[in-house]
């Protein structure tokens, strides 16, 4: 939905011609970029300067399950398509389609979260390769701290997005949802796509890079 379309729904706009809510969301996403930028930087720095554990090179591939993470990446990418279609549907006034697309996004987001919960549980309890917040294979190491904080923060963003979408899904059953809500749903969509692009960076930088080296 373009800014001009928003005007047709009588959204309050700033002097720039951009709706208030949208400009606020973009400013927030810009600041969230900085937030994730520091987390990713921290992980990469400590990965570089703490490359050994117990005198041996840290090889985290022993614990990573790249098939599972690849699957959850595809799931998150697919959820973005559902989200884009939900925004498109509400703008066209197609409430039934909006509802289904929101539902699809929620389900795929929930699958992603389930994969992450499974992954974290698997890492913490991997026999002989336990990765906790402060240790790897029982030896003190910082990898777990930066990894869990980064991917956990992303997971928290996904969870917030799922609850936000769930709110819209429930709202759609009240009979009060209309194309006038398009801007709100679009802001929700912007947030969801942002979560997607953060994962687009995290997946190759944190996971795939380990296999490239």
């Amino acid at each position, binding site marked *: 939905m373009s800014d001009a379309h928003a005007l047709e729904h009588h959204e309050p706009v700033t002097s720039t011609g951009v709706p208030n809510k949208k400009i606020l969301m973009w400013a927030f996403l*810009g600041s969230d970029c900085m937030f994730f930028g520091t987390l990713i930087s921290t992980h990469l720095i400590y990965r570089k300067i703490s490359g050994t554990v117990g005198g041996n090179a840290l090889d985290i591939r022993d614990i990573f399950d790249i098939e599972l993470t690849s699957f959850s990446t595809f799931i998150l990418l697919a959820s973005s398509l559902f989200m884009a279609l939900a925004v498109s549907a509400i703008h066209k006034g197609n409430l039934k389609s909006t509802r289904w697309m929101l539902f699809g996004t929620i389900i795929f987001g929930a699958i992603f979260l389930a994969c992450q919960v499974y992954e974290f549980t698997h890492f913490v309890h991997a026999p002989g390769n336990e990765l906790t917040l402060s240790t790897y294979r029982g030896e003190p190491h910082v990898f777990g701290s930066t990894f869990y904080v980064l991917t956990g923060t992303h997971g928290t963003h996904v969870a917030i997005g799922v609850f936000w979408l769930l709110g819209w899904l429930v709202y759609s059953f009240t009979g009060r949802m209309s194309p006038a809500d398009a801007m709100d749903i679009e802001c929700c969509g912007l947030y969801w796509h942002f979560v997607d692009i953060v994962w687009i960076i995290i997946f190759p930088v944190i996971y795939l890079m380990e296999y490239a080296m």
Partner: protein
Amino acid sequence: MSGHSDDPVADESKRFFTFFNLSMALVAITGIEIVIIYIHPFGSPIIIGVLFATSIVKFIGVIWWFMHLKWDKIINTVLFLLGLVIALGTFFAVIYMADTHPEIEKFEVTELKNEWSTGTEYSKGDYVVHKGIYYKSKENHKALDEFSPDSWAKAQGIPHRITYKINIADLVEINSKSPGNPFFHLHRPEDHENVNVSDVFLLARSATTQDFRLKVRSEAYWTESQ
């Protein structure tokens, strides 16, 4: 930049195919990334470069089409890029500053006071003490029964062997702590990793390791011997 028509419903209908195609492209690119990791067709630097490039392509695809920047006013793009540029600036600055800390694995200063002795094989540059005077061998030779001044030159100070081993360094400084025994040595290793040096220097007075300060730099980080 807005690029919309008077019929928003028609616009949205057209975008369905854009969104679908983009989604398929994102899945395909991610698939390529994973395949590259599995079959390792190139060296690590190229693979990392490819991952970097594909991530940028996917990133731009999502923000441009899924997040509607293509159709929105440019102020939204500017707002987002502002945060992104600051994040990238922070990222590169921190990565630059986070070079490996140099660690001094060994630092020793020992006086060379080997007494000259008959029958010993000496190499050019060896130092000996003979009757309280330090000499430097001019050539490879075997010591005869009598000290031969032709094979030796008087040393212009007291020879000390300075040895240091550092994991990573681009600059090494050695300073004397005692004013009566001035010494300053600066070394810029060509190979920054595993710097291992053992060399002989002439000093005005006898000294030990405690009489010197070793300072090592690796990019932004300095380390100093205790």
